[in-house]
């Protein structure tokens, strides 16, 4: 299977690989996927408490090139967005941007799930209620 150029570029030059201090109050961490499924994503956001803006985002991903690219792209999109705006990132936007083929749609779903999990982690840490999301359909 041939990967799109954008996937290859993110794979070769991943953006924002790394780790934020998961114990910090203004850092939200989302860890989704499972080793037995062949992909695990960890996505972290750092939020400015005063403005509610995402000032930094990092990821680490165990998975195929599309999974790596989806999480790399997600961190790019997250930076500079407010938490509320970040919630609007849809997996299909990732599919479109990266030209993911149907068998790789789950990679984008995982990235969307990771964003939501990171936001919820941040919310819970800061005394807010976790948002209940509908179960993603494409799993």
């Amino acid at each position: 299977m041939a990967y799109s150029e954008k996937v290859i570029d993110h794979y070769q030059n991943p953006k924002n690989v790394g780790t934020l201090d998961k114990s910090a109050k203004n850092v939200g961490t989302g860890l989704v996927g499972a080793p037995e499924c062949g992909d695990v994503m960890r996505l972290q956001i750092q939020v400015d408490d005063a403005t509610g803006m995402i000032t930094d985002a990092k990821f680490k991903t165990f998975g195929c090139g599309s999974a790596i690219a989806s999480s790399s792209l997600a961190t790019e999109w997250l930076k500079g967005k407010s938490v509320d705006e970040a919630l609007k990132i849809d997996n299909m936007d990732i599919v479109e941007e990266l030209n993911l083929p149907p068998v790789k749609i789950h990679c984008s779903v995982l990235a969307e799930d990771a964003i939501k999990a990171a936001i919820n982690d941040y919310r819970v840490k800061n005394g807010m209620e976790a948002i209940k999301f509908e179960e993603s359909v494409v799993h």
Partner: protein
Amino acid sequence: MLKLPIYLDNNATTPMDPRVLEAMTPYFLEHFGNAASRNHPFGWEAEEAVDYAREQVAKLIGADPKEIIFTSGATEGDNLAIKGVYEMYASKGNHIITATTEHKAVLDTCKHIEKLGGEVTYLPVNAEGLIDLKELEAAIKPTTILIAIMYANNEIGTIQPIKEISALARKNGVLLFTDGTQAVGKIPVDVNKDGIDLMAFSAHKMYGPKGVGALYVRRKNPRVKVTAQMDGGGHERGMRSGTLNVPGIVGFGKACELCMLDMEEDTRRISILRDKLETELLKLEEAYVNGSREHRLPHVSNISFKHVEGEGLMMGFNKNIALSSGSACTSASLEPSYVLKALGLGDDLAHSSLRFGLGRFTTDEQIDYTIKAVSETVLKLREMSPLWEMYKEGIDLNTISWAAH
């Protein structure tokens, strides 16, 4: 100068040896006759060429030329052997014994047999990929007509104890069929010394052309028969109808002859390269060889690099190195290799594997390049892997409740 890409997927298919192509060419052009045309020189030439190739093929496996049935490849051979025996020996019984690590052409044929009302026992394998002879013997019953165990595995290269298996088969009056696709031409296979009754193999795995293979069917002690699975002109002693693929068969014969001539030298050279590759790659932390290292084909190495995913790993170099991964992220099922899982490998390791298949044309330079490229990519992806980070922090990944999706 090193020419890219490098081909290290010789278990999938092998490049044709130029000497094979040379032997084949005249049979596409001036000697195009149908080997079944008995009344003119075109047919005679073709028949003569097929007879000669049949001898070359038979010689490689220690068989009589009459025992070679030409097919389109090993998948057809597997089907013809299993279905053909099932039909031919229906009055004796309906039970077949096979193993969980067999090729799909065997496993799916067995599934088909079950739908027809047959009974199939799927033997498990140990961590090295070997079946247990005691379990095999215990599985044999009065209705057992066939044992179908591959000679060597396509993913991990593990060689089954065929002589011991055939001794058990003989003792119990059961036929032994083996899928010899990966073994024939690579290691010495002798149908008489090994006690094989039926064996499928294929030309394109031994530097011959695609689309041609053979089924060995024993003619004496015991005389084995299979029911044809295609009806037609009654070619190949009535077991496989269809006009013979003369150029393909000529190439197959030549490929067998070359394998016989070159086997010793090929094995010596290739196993040195394989061992070098393996030794260097195992210097990486958390890298493990899958399958038996003792009972193994000389040109195969299947290695898991823990905490990196196989497909992602291959993407790091698959423009330049052709390999195969046990990970199945490309398929909708996300299921990793059933062979690796049968060894008892956890899904994480099964998803992290690469199969290196060396061959006659693999060079030292190519192996050096591969060692470097694979090592670098493993290290790079581990820096990107949350699992590697957790492992390094001493977190037991089994204690995490993963949201399996």
